[in-house]
């Protein structure tokens, strides 16, 4: 019996489809990455123009500062304090065992000032505020409210993006600072229960950490704030196809923000470290 011809062409068809798909995927991914970068920077520059010319509503900015910053503080404090406590639990245990108690406070403080405080604050604001920005703007796009703004000759960048960008950039350092204190607070309590006296903890912090470390961390939060607002607004404005589109925009916004925070954190650490070495 002759084998069915259909079966014989399946591998060819599959290979062709795979090749086409791969070609499309590669091509599409490159173009969409370029589009994403271009769109996002365009929003940043346009918003900066409106902010520089004072064409941003103060009331809207303050409202977003409350929504994005102040409302994110409870979860930022909770995550930073518990991370600080867990870190201290492991660190203090090991350091005390090796007789290095004097390094516990400084090590934990530096960890928070340089790294954990800014990153935790960034991730929390991205998860809470970034998602809210993308969902809100995305809903406005699919319900034609953004078109309504344009029809009234009001720039969506001026009205929607610029106040959120300004609010996020202003509030992220505040969240970062609060995360630093909450994290170090959690560390102090846990270290004390692990046999590191509070006075020794503070002495260690004073000898190892400086104001510059705090400033370096806060510089990072400025960048994270810019990233979160710009990416979330861009994803929101690019929303397509109804409620499912809003869901996709929100998810992609959070994922992109968190990934970009971690990637940019690496480069910022190198740049800031390089800057401090050069200054010395």
């Amino acid at each position, binding site marked *: 019996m002759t084998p069915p011809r259909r079966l014989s062409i399946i591998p060819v068809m599959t290979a062709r489809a795979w090749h086409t798909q791969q070609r499309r995927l590669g091509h599409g991914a490159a173009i969409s990455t370029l589009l994403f970068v271009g769109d996002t920077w365009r929003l940043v520059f346009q918003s900066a123009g409106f902010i520089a010319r004072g064409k941003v509503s103060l009331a809207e900015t303050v409202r977003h500062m409350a929504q994005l910053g102040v409302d994110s503080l409870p979860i930022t404090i909770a995550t930073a304090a518990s991370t600080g406590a867990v870190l201290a639990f492991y660190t203090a245990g090991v350091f005390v065992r090796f007789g290095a108690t004097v390094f516990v406070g400084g090590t934990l403080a530096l960890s928070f000032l340089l790294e954990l405080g800014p990153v935790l604050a960034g991730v929390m604001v991205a998860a809470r505020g970034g998602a809210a920005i993308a969902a809100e703007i995305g809903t406005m796009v699919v*319900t*034609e*409210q953004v*078109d*309504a703004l*344009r*029809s*009234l*000759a*009001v*720039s969506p960048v001026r009205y929607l993006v610029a106040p959120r960008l300004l609010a996020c950039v202003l509030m992220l350092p505040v969240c970062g600072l609060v995360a630093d204190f909450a994290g170090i607070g959690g560390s102090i309590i846990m270290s004390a229960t692990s046999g590191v006296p509070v006075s020794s903890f503070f002495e260690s912090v004073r000898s190892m950490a400086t104001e510059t470390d705090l400033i370096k961390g806060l510089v990072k939060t400025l960048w994270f704030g810019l990233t979160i607002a710009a990416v979330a607004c861009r994803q929101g404005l690019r929303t397509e196809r109804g409620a499912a589109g809003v869901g996709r925009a929100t998810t992609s916004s959070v994922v992109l923000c968190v990934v970009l925070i971690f990637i940019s954190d690496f480069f910022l650490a190198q740049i800031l470290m390089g800057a401090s070495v050069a200054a010395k």
Partner: protein
Amino acid sequence: MSVRGVCYRAEDRLILSDITFDVYRGEVLSLMGMSGSGKTTLLKCLGGLVRPTSGAILVGGEDIVRLPESELDRIRLRFGFVFQYAALFDSMTVFENVAFGVQHHRRIPMAELRQVVARRLEDVNLAGTEELYPSELSGGMQKRVGLARALAMEPSVLLYDEPTSGLDPVIGRAIDDLIVRTRDTYGVTSVVVSHDIETIFRISDRIAMLDVGVLLTIGTPEEVRNSDLPKVREFIYGDNGYDNLNRPPLTTMENAL
């Protein structure tokens, strides 16, 4: 306003193909056609919300297709857009919605702004609804607030996207009357997108029909009614030759009005 050879392509699909027509001052021009025929896209092109791929749209001698976004805002101020689902800002009250455009473009005292909003809401028979939120309004009321918001900017051209879709016949007819009354009161040029032929023949000075992105015909209601084009006849009279325009009047509807 003149539309010259307008084409619009989205990804691989040609949505509008070589559309050419004029809109005369003070007329009500309706764009009719089946769903997906490109009516709303054309309306958004006229309002400067969608940029055509090629062609020209001349408004007062200026080609809005070639204008940069910042310049386009100047033209948009002369247009009012009434959206299919009203597109009211849902976090704002009716007052804030109607006042929004005026607040952004004219620095006027709050007392005067309140008067402007009250007048526009009276025009659409919604006086006293200032403090309500869009979610507290019916679909017909939302569309009328959308019209009030557009009117507050004192436009010279009003663009309506499916003004009666999703509304019951009584409210639909009230919206029809409102469109005609707005034209008569303010002398605005109106372009109405609809696939409701009762509305179209009731309010229009001229009618254009689109079919899969192509302008099939444009003329007075009488000319369109007597068109020999099969697709036009099919749209107006239906497959079985039933005349949708000369249906017996719905007594309940007439009585209600």
